């Protein structure tokens, strides 16, 4: 008889939800194994290179659906390695949202006040820092100046960046070469590993089964380290509890696939997906007007022309984060950098017959790329995303060697969502087209649908079993011992970048998960000190290992 590997806790995914769970459970004494679908990369592996196969494509998962495409992290550290490290807390009104169900979507136990202590913990660990105006890139400064000119406010965004190390190279989506971005490789993950947790990269979980002793058997495939279309092995691990943290684009797919072996899933698994209400606008800045109207000057003869310079989003307009406004009219507008590659094609130029993403006018727009200013709208959408039947493996039919796949998500924006985007579009135009500063158009939704980098809510917490897959302890309804701690647990769009909220919810869930683990016979306790940020050196993969070991 073949012996079956077993562990106390199996964590699926090493992003925010997985890393935080792995840390607390390992630090509390549990045996923890983390299976991560992507490779294990670190500073020396992060490339300044767009060539297919470099870190820029290795660390991402881009899944096109019907009406919505999702960009996610795909590496040890998950989204924290590829994100822009913007870490605001969600505004108070967000937790009171009703959305399409006509009653509060969040569990009654959670409000901004009850979540603030958990926000505090994560903010201490990462750590989250505030930016001064000296830290603000030209693009952020331009957005601030335009907001100010239009009578609006603008805030430097709190971030998880070591400002002293940042070179403003704007390659941070490919992983930070300079260890300036304080990803999970600097805090929760080294903390977990120091406490005995084992991280296995290129292990893609496919399905869960129940074992006779009330635990779970987790089936995984091992993925080739260069060509993710190739499976190089497979295996199983038994665990007393399972933490699902594969991301909102993958967790529900794994659970749906597991329905055949686990039994019926809650109705909300794979439903109520939110793209966090995200939408992009591209402005073409009139350099003369930026100088004349906004008084901007880089000191080298240029007013702006600095699209390439910076560190993602640094300044946001929060004037519409106002709880007295009706739902779907509350949003933030954040300056953003979107690198060449998968985004530029979606930017629209004004053509003879209307906006166009191709042709002569688009080419002319590309000539002015350094004068682009991208504005990221984060509105309240209607949780209208639904996942169809899962693909045979993974969360998509993989097309390219890395990154690109076609997935089962469909998203048909409701009038509420469309109205929210229209209101945000109008606000961006009012700010940026004022006095000829810029011309602005939204990205087309025709090619790949709406585009989110912050998938949420596809397996959400709540008090109502009909509209939430998880109880307020993050346990999957009807499947005790399975917990979900990633972005899929967040009930709805947040109107701001969600990483800190995902993390705070994961921190908040941990005492209950530890208690559940103890009830299942795991010798674990809650209350270990928070991990110390490794200021100078991140978690390194084992010396003998390749990126996939």
């Amino acid at each position, binding site marked *: 008889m073949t012996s079956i590997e077993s562990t106390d806790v199996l964590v699926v995914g090493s992003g925010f939800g997985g890393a935080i769970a792995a840390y607390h459970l390992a630090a509390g004494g549990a045996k923890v194994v983390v299976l991560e679908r992507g490779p294990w990369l670190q500073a020396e592996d992060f490339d300044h290179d767009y060539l297919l196969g470099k870190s820029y494509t290795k660390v991402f998962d881009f899944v096109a659906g019907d009406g919505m495409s999702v960009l996610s992290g795909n590496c040890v550290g998950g989204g924290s390695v590829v994100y822009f490290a913007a870490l605001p807390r969600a505004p108070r009104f967000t937790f009171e949202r009703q959305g399409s169900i006509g009653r509060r979507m969040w569990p009654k136990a959670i409000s901004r006040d009850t979540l603030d202590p958990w926000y505090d913990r994560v903010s201490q660990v990462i750590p989250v820092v505030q930016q001064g*105006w000296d830290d603000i890139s030209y693009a952020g400064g331009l957005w601030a100046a335009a907001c100010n000119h239009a009578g609006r406010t603008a805030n430097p965004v709190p971030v998880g960046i070591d400002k002293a190390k940042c070179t403003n190279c704007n390659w941070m989506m490919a992983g930070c070469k300079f260890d300036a971005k304080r990803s999970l490789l600097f805090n929760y993950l080294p903390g977990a590993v120091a406490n005995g947790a084992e991280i296995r990269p290129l292990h893609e979980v496919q399905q869960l089964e129940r074992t006779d002793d009330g635990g779970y058997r987790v089936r995984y495939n091992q993925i080739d380290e260069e060509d993710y279309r190739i499976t190089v092995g497979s295996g199983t691990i038994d665990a007393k509890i399972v933490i699902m943290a594969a991301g909102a684009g993958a967790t529900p797919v794994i659970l749906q696939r597991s329905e055949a072996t686990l039994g019926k899933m809650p109705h909300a698994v794979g439903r109520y997906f939110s793209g966090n209400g995200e939408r992009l606008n591209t402005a073409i800045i009139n350099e003369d007007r930026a100088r004349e109207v906004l008084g901007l000057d880089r000191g080298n003869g240029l007013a702006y022309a600095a699209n*390439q310079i910076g560190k993602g989003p640094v300044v946001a307009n929060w004037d519409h984060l106002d709880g007295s406004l009706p739902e779907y009219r509350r949003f933030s507008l954040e300056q953003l950098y979107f690198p060449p590659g998968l985004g530029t094609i979606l930017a629209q130029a004004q053509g003879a017959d209307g906006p166009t993403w191709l042709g002569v006018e688009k080419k002319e727009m590309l000539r002015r790329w*350094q004068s682009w200013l991208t504005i990221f709208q984060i509105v309240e959408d209607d949780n209208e995303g639904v996942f169809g039947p899962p693909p045979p493996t993974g969360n998509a039919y993989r097309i*390219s060697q890395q990154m690109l796949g076609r997935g089962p998500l469909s998203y048909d924006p409701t009038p509420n969502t469309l109205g929210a985007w229209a209101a945000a579009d109008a606000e961006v135009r009012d700010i940026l087209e004022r006095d000829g500063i810029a011309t602005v158009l939204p990205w087309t939704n025709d090619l790949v649908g709406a585009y989110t980098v912050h998938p949420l809510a596809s397996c959400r917490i709540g008090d109502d079993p009909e509209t939430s897959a998880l109880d307020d302890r993050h346990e999957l309804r009807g499947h005790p011992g399975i917990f979900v701690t990633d972005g899929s647990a967040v009930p709805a769009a947040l109107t701001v970048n969600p990483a800190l909220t995902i993390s705070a919810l994961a921190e908040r869930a941990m005492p209950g998960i530890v208690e559940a683990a103890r009830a299942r016979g795991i010798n674990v306790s809650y209350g270990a000190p928070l991990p110390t940020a490794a200021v100078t050196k991140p978690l390194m993969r084992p010396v003998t290992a390749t990126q996939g070991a």
Partner: protein
Amino acid sequence: MHSGTSDEHVKTITLEAFADCIVPGEKRSPDDRAIAGVSTGGGAVQAGALEMLHHDATGITAGLEALVGMLNGHATTYAADKGITLDGDVPPFVALEFDDRCAIIRTLTTPGHPEKDGWVLLSLFCNMAFDSAAHMSTHDAIAQGHPGLLTIGFELPQDDGLWRFADFSYGRQLAKPHPDTTPSGSPA
């Protein structure tokens, strides 16, 4: 098949004509039929769209012949509908004027079109060849004067091949923060 053209040639100039719609460029020679010549400087074709499409990592290479056949079929139908007489010396899509080529691509990429996925992929990779030269090392692309990176004005790296911008900020306060900002810098 069209007179005087091999299957491979049909495939190449049809895909070039498609790529030229996504990011148009100037003709490589006076008798260049694939590139319509509606723009100055290099476009997606000069940027290496064909090399990109034939890069196995894209996952689209095996489907190119089928896409070419479908595209020329759509061009034939389009021409018949519009009463356009096609020049038989080149594939039907190449025989069309630039605006007609673009009109076909817009139709094929409209939400709900049954073939949309394939045409979006083709468009995506043609655009990537131009805006990020993803079929080659970025450093080689810059050294060789890649037309896409040149056109967008992509800044040069430092001597060690890495980008760093010492000058990145106006260095002054340019707006008032929201009055309800919390001490931690977040919305209230």
